[in-house]
């Protein structure tokens, strides 16, 4: 596939659609969580208002250059992920900048945001940020292991590192999905998925009762607005990868919305009723359950 200039506005359009979808979907999911607790929940457009409010704040203070760059890196992670992953299979407009080895790049971007956040939060000098960051890094590292193993398993299975090709291989019937052709890899990767969605029981990074919301403790106004944008983009970008790799991708926007929502809800269902693991318990969990399943998945292939 050759590069064409028209891809840039197309990719931006994709980004715009995903951003708005994310804003509405996260609000909807908050509403679902609230309903479990018996509440009515926030208005569906609340995320837009919060974002606007944060941008409209009049004062902001900085703790240094890295403090600026933290949210920027984080957002880059989210946007980069979306840009290099084909959103809609078979659509010229929304396949973005997918290329031959993009799976590796995507895996890199998954980690990139956390890393950038770590630098920024460390600059803010708040001890809770530092604790949150160290927790976040150790947990992401542990959760990454099953994911990496699962991804290796399927790249061996399909003999390619191109996400578009992987999606192509899963078309046709629902039983062509990796979910059915390689269930162990899917399970291993889902461990990582639940583990990195910042929901209970793996929300040690934010953990309000322990370290008041962790890394973003010092972030406010526009910085926080950037991070909020990323908070709606990044989980969806991540879910897109999972959808492409394990659940057959999407061929149209409605299919995309439904699938993303369904996959996202997996973490929500678990998150709503579970208390929180301690960081070493969650690492233990990944090493004990995620890792063997991942190894098995590779062996199976």
């Amino acid at each position, binding site marked *: 596939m050759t590069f064409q200039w028209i891809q840039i506005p197309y990719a931006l359009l994709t980004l715009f659609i995903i951003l708005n979808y994310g804003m509405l979907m996260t609000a909807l999911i908050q509403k679902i969580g609230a309903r479990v607790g018996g509440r009515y929940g926030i208005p569906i457009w609340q995320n837009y208002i919060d974002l606007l*409010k944060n941008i*409209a704040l009049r004062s902001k203070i900085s703790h240094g250059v890295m403090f600026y760059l933290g949210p920027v890196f984080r957002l880059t992670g989210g946007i980069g992920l979306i840009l290099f992953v084909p959103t809609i299979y078979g659509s010229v407009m929304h396949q973005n900048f997918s290329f031959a080895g993009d799976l590796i790049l995507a895996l890199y971007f998954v980690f990139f945001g956390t890393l950038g956040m770590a630098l920024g939060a460390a600059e803010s000098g708040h001890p809770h940020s530092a604790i949150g960051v160290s927790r976040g890094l150790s947990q992401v590292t542990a959760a990454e292991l099953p994911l990496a193993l699962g991804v290796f398993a399927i790249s061996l299975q399909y003999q390619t590192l191109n996400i578009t090709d992987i999606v192509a291989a899963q078309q046709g019937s629902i039983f062509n999905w990796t979910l059915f052709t390689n269930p162990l890899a899917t399970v291993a990767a889902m461990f990582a998925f639940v583990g990195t969605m910042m929901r209970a029981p793996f929300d040690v990074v934010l953990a*309000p009762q322990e370290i*008041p919301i962790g890394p973003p403790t010092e*972030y406010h106004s526009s910085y926080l607005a950037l991070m909020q944008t990323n908070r709606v983009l990044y989980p969806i970008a991540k879910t897109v990868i999972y959808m492409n790799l394990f659940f057959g991708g999407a061929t149209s926007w409605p299919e995309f919305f439904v699938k993303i929502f369904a996959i996202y809800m997996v973490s929500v269902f678990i998150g709503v009723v579970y208390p929180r693991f301690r960081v070493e318990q969650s690492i233990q969990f990944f090493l004990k359950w995620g890792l063997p399943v991942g190894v098995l998945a590779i062996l199976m292939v």
Partner: protein
Amino acid sequence: MKDMDKSFRKDTETEFPLREEMRPRTVTAPDGQVIEIDPLRDYFCEEAPKVHRKSYSAIVEGFYNWARANSLWILGFGTGCGAIEMRPLMTPRFDAYRYGIQWRPTPRQANLLIISGYLSVKTLKRAIRAYEQMQQPKFVVGLGSCTINGGMYWDSYNTIKRLDDYLPVDLYIAGCMPRPEALLAGLMELKKIIRRGEAEGANKYAENFDWYKANQKSVIKDWDMPDYSW
């Protein structure tokens, strides 16, 4: 009620000694470097707050105010007994989330400081710091009779009587203690004030900074923090 002892005079002479960890000292770092530390100067910025203008266009400002009013982030700081009615406020019966109200655990991200009830001098010191760390524009709501004029604790030696001497208050909610319905009504009223563009407490604070500081320092005798906590 017992009569007041007219002969009692408050001790205004004694200065509170500077705490040990706040005194200047020299420290040897792990790598052998010797560092002079003056905690009251080194760690803080001494700049005074400044007045932040509204945006130039009234329409933009009105739009912003609408957003501010519909996204009130309360600092989760229960300063007094009124905090017990804040929990029903956020739970199924009253559910203030419907109105865009939610808790933030850190002052940096909060816009609304609710002083929930009486303020002892010790808490006042923390409340001032929390208030100053919030970003403009920020709002203060005084909850309960005790923030208005002392209420039940009008003769207590340890609680302040008027909150607006120390922080710029946008709205008071009276009662001991105010019910969640009263809280909701008060917050709705606050929204109207914000939308009208009258909730300029932070600018008021910056304009009358010296007056507020003098009031605060007359009560807090161990003032070992910068004048403005950035």
